[in-house]
Structure formats: structure tokens, C-alpha cells
């Protein structure tokens, strides 16, 4: 059922290799980016929020210590 004689024939796709693999390749890259980019953004967002909250806590601690 495998339509090609060997792996070489599969890669070259009867001469249409660059077209087929080019399309699949670029599409895979774009789709991978589509799925991973939001995950990265979320991580960055939460990290930044974490840092901001830490900074605020430290400031409040500092103020409390000064007060007492």
C-alpha cells in the first residue's frame, strides 16, 4: 500500500519533492508556532506578574519595618 518504491522515491515525489515537502514543511512550522507562541506568552505574562507582586511585597515589608 506504500505508494513509493523506496525512501528515495518518497523524498523526491516524482520530481515534485520540493513543492510537496516545502508546503508541508512551512505549514508545519507555522502551525507549530501558532500552538507554542501563546504558551510562551502566558509564561512571560505570569513571570512578569510574579516579579511585580514580589517587588510590591518587598516594598510593603520595607515600609512596615520603617514604621515600627
Amino acid at each position, binding site marked *: 500500500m506504500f505508494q513509493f518504491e523506496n525512501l528515495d522515491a518518497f523524498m523526491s515525489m516524482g520530481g515534485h519533492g520540493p513543492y510537496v515537502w516545502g508546503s508541508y514543511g512551512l*505549514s508545519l512550522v507555522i502551525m507549530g508556532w501558532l*500552538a507554542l507562541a501563546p504558551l510562551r506568552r502566558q509564561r512571560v505574562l505570569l513571570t512578569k506578574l510574579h516579579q511585580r507582586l514580589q517587588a510590591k511585597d518587598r516594598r510593603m515589608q520595607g515600609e512596615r519595618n520603617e514604621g515600627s
Partner: protein
Amino acid sequence: MWQWFHKLGSPRWFYQISGKFLPWLALASVVLIVTGAVWGLAFAPEDARQGNSFRIIYIHVPASFLALAGYYVMAAAGAVGMIWKIKLADMVMVAAAPLGAALTFIALFTGAVWGKPTWGTYWIWDARITSMLVLLFLYIGIIALSHSFSTRESSARACAILALVGTVNIPIIYKSVDWWHTLHQPATIKLSGAPSMHPDMFKPLLVMILGFYCFYVLVLLLNTRTEVLLREGRTNWVKDLAQPK
């Protein structure tokens, strides 16, 4: 009943529930797309006329499908957000725009690359590709508009209006381009050979379409979750997420 509806609109609830679905969606997308791609690339029979380049169809058709459907998703979300003032709907709309644009680009790129071995040229002004190009412009317009406004609320309203105007126009645009194309090139081979496809060629296409659907929902949820975090940064539950106790 209204309580459930309101709960549906709560970003926090959405974030928690969608988190549970994500791993399954990701699994389904990967399995379906890999299966469909391998099937289409290696096991589907070669096309008599086009040879192996027709295998591009397994990416081109699902991408075009979702690109178009995605526009309606975006417009519907915008409409819901505008009519019922549900912030979450606005977030879904914003999330859907770049996703749809990327899929339209994939459809255009694969279509052009497919054209080269088939008709000897990368670009051919046939109805499908030309309509896809116009769709890309519609998406880019929405994305550009969403970045131009100062407040998030006016941005969402403006994009919703534009998306709705575009929705009415899409069938008109497609029909008119289709008609225009037949005027000028009455006897060309059509790209959409689906009805005359051999079932062995068609089955992997179905699998890919399903896989792309799952992928679309997955990325839409991911993007919406990002929007939720971005906008609800001041709430306690998001703060808790940032600082696991």
C-alpha cells in the same frame, strides 16, 4: 438558566474549564494530523493527471476550510460581545483573528506552490485563490484595526462592526469572483476536485480536516486564555496563578 449563561461568560471559569480540555485537544490534533499527513503523503494513490503534487491538497483544503470558518467564528464572537456585552466573547474574537490570518496564509501559500507543477505558474487568478486573498485582506484589516484603538472596549466594538460587515460580504465576494473567473477562463481545471476524488484519496482528507478542526479549537482556546490573563491581571485568581503558594 441565566446564571449558567453568566457563568459561561466568566473569564475565570473559562480559564479553568479550558485548561482541562487542552491536553485532550492537543492529543487529538496531533494524532489526527500526523495520521492524515502520513496517509496522504505515503499511502494515498497518486493522481493520474497531477502526479504527486496533488498531495498538497491534504494541507491546502483543510487550511482553506478553517480559514473561512474561522472568519465566521470571529464575527460571531464579535457579535455576541457587542450585543450581550460579554467580555469573554470579545477575547475570543481577538484570539481568532491572527489564527485565521495564519491559516489563510497557509492556504494561499500551499495553493500557489501547488499551482507551479500543475499549471506552470505560482499565481493564477482563479476564484478560490483570489477569494482567499480577499479574505486575507479582511483578516489583516481586523488585526490592524484592533491595534489602533486606545481602549480595549472601543477596539472590540470597532472590530466587531468590521467583522460583521465583512461577513455579509464574504459570500458576495466569493460568488462574484467565481463568476468573474468563469468569464475569463471558462475551461480551466478547477482546484477543488473533491467531488471527483477517488475514495482512497478522500479518506485521508477527511482525517486531516478533522485534525485541523481540533487544531483550530486548540489554538483558539490557547490564544483566548492568553487574552484572559492579559486582561484579568488585576484579579486575585490571576495573581494566585502567578504566585503558586
